């Protein structure tokens, strides 16, 4: 759909030669920190900005020259951008009214959309009289009622509180499956992207770093930037001194030898090792034999989260690592801050990356 698209804002390259194909019916998320160019990319697809170079095609039709109102695309804006002087009904009907659809058809479409997003009984309210979650639903309905080929969502859940966000994530997924439209969603929440998406594109500094299914992105990040952004914070840099099939040996001064899984194409030389927080095992006293890799560490911080406990450790080189332990395991031992111990992981749980 996107071919070599470039967009600059003054001196800043917001979107840097991005090529991307989103399949029909797919829930695709653009994940990246703020300022990574993901919103700009969305606006380019919507036609609210135009690219400096490259082509944008929707259903094989190049739409570069089309204004927003001529594209079969609708957008859910970050702060919803609901029309404050119109009722819920008028907001949802706006797009169809502008397309001069017959009144009866408009009414029927609005009714069915209101049922889909569960807003019955709120039709005559104004946006100012609705809660954040309800406004979100109106924004969704207002865009979806036009049956767009692609629905663009710009941080759709960012303005909601934690609980509501989780509810709306489920809701969003349900709606997407029911209408079977292509969704392109911009978010900076990795858990949201992992949960909702069929595929994810990780963006940073205007570049698309990796595109893949949530499993691929989480399981095989191609670079340390992607890994860090997907929530894999435990890492150290070393040198690959030997590799054998899909394993490699990484050395670092004052560190024991570490063995980790190794992606294809990683040569001998500097590299990064990543371990997921949930794969860290804590050994108080004697390290266990069944885990190949062991590092000495000191307990730095303990955060109780109810269903799980997050431990932070200081390594000997000063780095901070996190271990995520389910509460069922955690309550059996009590770690105190400053306590020296060992953290361990198995060979297949470590992952080497080019830095």
């Amino acid at each position, binding site marked *: 759909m996107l071919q070599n698209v470039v967009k600059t804002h003054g001196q800043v390259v917001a979107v840097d030669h991005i090529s991307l194909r989103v399949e029909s019916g797919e829930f695709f998320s653009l994940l990246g920190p703020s300022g990574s160019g993901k919103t700009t990319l969305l606006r380019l697809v*919507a*036609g*609210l900005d135009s690219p400096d170079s490259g082509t944008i095609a929707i259903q094989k039709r190049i739409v570069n020259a089309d*204004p*927003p*109102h001529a594209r079969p*695309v*609708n*957008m859910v*804006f*970050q*702060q919803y*951008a*609901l*029309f*404050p*002087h119109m009722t819920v009904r008028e907001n949802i009907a*706006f*797009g169809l009214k*502008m*397309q001069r659809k017959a009144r009866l058809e408009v009414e029927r479409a609005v009714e069915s959309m209101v049922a889909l997003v569960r807003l019955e009984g709120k039709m005559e309210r104004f946006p100012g009289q609705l809660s954040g979650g309800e406004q979100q639903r109106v924004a969704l309905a*207002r*865009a979806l009622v*036009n049956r767009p080929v692609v629905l663009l969502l710009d941080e759709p859940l960012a303005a909601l509180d934690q609980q509501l966000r989780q509810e709306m994530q489920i809701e969003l997924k349900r709606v997407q499956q029911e209408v079977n439209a292509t969704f392109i969603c911009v978010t900076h929440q990795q858990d949201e992207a992992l949960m909702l998406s069929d595929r994810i594109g990780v963006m940073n500094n205007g570049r698309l770093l990796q595109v893949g299914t949530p499993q691929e992105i989480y399981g095989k990040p191609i670079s340390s930037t992607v890994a860090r952004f997907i929530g894999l914070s435990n890492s150290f840099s070393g040198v690959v001194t030997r590799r054998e099939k899909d394993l490699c040996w990484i050395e670092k001064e004052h560190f024991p030898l570490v063995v980790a899984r190794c992606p294809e194409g990683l040569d001998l030389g500097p590299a990064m090792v990543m371990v997921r927080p949930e794969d860290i095992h804590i050994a108080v006293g004697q390290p266990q034999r069944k885990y190949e890799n062991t590092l000495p560490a000191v307990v730095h911080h303990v955060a109780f989260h109810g269903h799980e406990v997050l431990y932070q450790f200081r390594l000997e080189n000063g780095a901070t690592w996190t271990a995520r332990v389910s509460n069922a395991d955690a309550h059996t031992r009590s770690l105190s801050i400053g306590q020296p111990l060992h953290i361990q992981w198995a060979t297949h749980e470590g992952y080497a990356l080019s830095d």
Partner: protein
Amino acid sequence: MNHLSSQSLPVSVISTFWLALFFLLIFFFLPLLVVFGVSFASRGLYGGVEWILTWDNYRRLADPLIGVIFFRSLIFAAMTTMVCAIIGFPLAYVVARVSPGWQLVWLTLVMIPFWTNFLVRTYAWILILRADGLVNGFLLTLGIQSEPLSLLFTDFAVALGLIYGYLPFMVLPLIVAIERISPRLEEAASDLYASRGAMFRYVVLPLSKPGFMAGGVLVFIPSLGAFITPYILGGGQKMMIGTLIQQEFLVSRDWPFGSALSFGLMGTALILWFLVNRTSLGKNVT
């Protein structure tokens, strides 16, 4: 209420409130009260005010001749307001949507006329409009017109002067109103298949209503009572309320009738204000 407010508000706020009330009382309400009193008095033989109380001054307002003058003033004021809104909106939209640097330039341009006295600016129009003025000179030189157009001392000149004089009062509140409309709403409208025209009609114009209301009052009320413009640019040929009041006070020296006319004008403005608010309030509730 006084009891409540002195409990919850700091002393400085309360004293400021009383000070403001005091000044309002002395400089606004008291003179108004004097004029109200005079409107029930009688004209003395040589133009003084004699305290013989009477309804006569108000009865004279019912004179058809006065009615015509009121009606003419209302038409001029309504037309001025309308034209100011039509010219003012695009101007205000541009000023509200340009970059902050350009906005300062535009705002300065809008306000520069205020740095010169209104009377002087009105006289300047005479130089432009009169038979050997700028407009006619231009038309004659280019040969578009063989005879000079008579522009000065016409309804056209009065309307032009009023629109010129009060346009900033429409533009400034409109800028404030338009600036409050998020550009996201315009993008949303255009994303939802609204053409540029439809976007203005259904989104920007309705949301600019507070600006039109404030601007409308600021233009309508003073142009209803305007007297400098009809007097200078209209040559005082067609009487308006403003010129009539001025004449009653300064020429005919009939202060009581002038006062009654002033209150008639105020009453008209108040009734119109009430009507406009009632209709717009009714719209907002449903």
